[in-house]
């Protein structure tokens, strides 16, 4: 597969294209940010589905994905309360998120350190890494520095080169 020379860097999205959020922001704030960058118009979608997470010094520490945000729902273990589950969990969930404010982006983000690929990693190996880690986006490092995010969609767009 070395015949096809494309690497992670060739297909990734540059890091500057992503919305950024701080790691001590609340889930409520994060959802608002993502709903601004990422929105729909009838059946079409605009923008990226994740945001990059910064610490207080501005260093990148994680990726916040849609699934990460939804994970916040699991924190409240609502399923153990049958009454809430049946009717008004939505109200309970959202008021809980806003009032307690104790679930932070840090708690549900995927830390950068968990899984990364290098800028020169071949596309086919990026595909295997996405599968191995059960994710749809991976940070791309060039000499240890974060330069972009490579996503399942980016691979899909060049897959025609590999499978004819």
């Amino acid at each position, binding site marked *: 597969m070395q015949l096809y020379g494309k690497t992670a860097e060739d297909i990734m999205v540059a890091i500057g294209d992503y919305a950024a959020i701080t790691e001590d922001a609340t889930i409520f704030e994060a959802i608002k940010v993502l709903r601004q960058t990422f929105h729909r118009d009838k059946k079409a979608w605009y923008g990226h589905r994740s945001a990059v997470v910064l610490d207080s010094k501005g260093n990148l520490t994680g990726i916040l994905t849609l699934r990460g945000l939804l994970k916040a729902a699991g924190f409240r273990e609502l399923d153990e309360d049958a009454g809430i589950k049946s009717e008004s969990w*939505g109200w309970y969930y959202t008021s809980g998120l806003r009032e307690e404010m104790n679930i932070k982006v840090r708690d549900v983000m995927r830390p950068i350190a968990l899984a990364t690929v290098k800028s020169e990693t071949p596309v086919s190996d990026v595909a295997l890494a996405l599968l191995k880690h059960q994710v749809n986006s991976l940070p791309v490092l060039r000499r240890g520095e974060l330069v972009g995010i490579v996503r399942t969609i980016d691979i899909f767009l060049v897959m025609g080169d590999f499978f004819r």
Partner: protein
Amino acid sequence: MSRVLRVKNVMVPIGEYPVIREDAVVAEALCALGGSFHERGGTWYGFQSLLVLSNRNRLIGILTLRGLLKAFEKRAVYDHLLKGDPEGLMFVKPFRGGLEITVRDIMRPLRLITIGQDSSILEAIKIVCRKKVNSLPVMDGKRLVGIVRTIDLFWSVGELLESHSGGE
């Protein structure tokens, strides 16, 4: 305030989804998905998965973008098998047809992960997080009626948040 939000209220009905046959090869699947799912000026149109139809015309699976990545995995295995056997090269040509990766090899069978149409959105959120998938087949008994996706769930949670913060 009480508001019942069920999976069937936010799912995409199956009639809107593109389909592909189980014995289609990867290139055909790419073509079918590329036809429905595409970008124009930074905007994405269409769905990121295909429903899989068996040779008996039954819906048997879902092929997601991540499923397509499995084609790389399969090919790596096949390449390894062929290279591992010095005689293997001789058989490459005749076996090529048999080694073609089909949709059946990389799809997610319907029976693996599903949710009932009357389940709550919270239930769907928990399955999506626990099973690490973004598309969840929705069943009415044994019949597939729709797909609920992470973006649909995210959107309804976001709308709840905004509707509850609007009055302040």
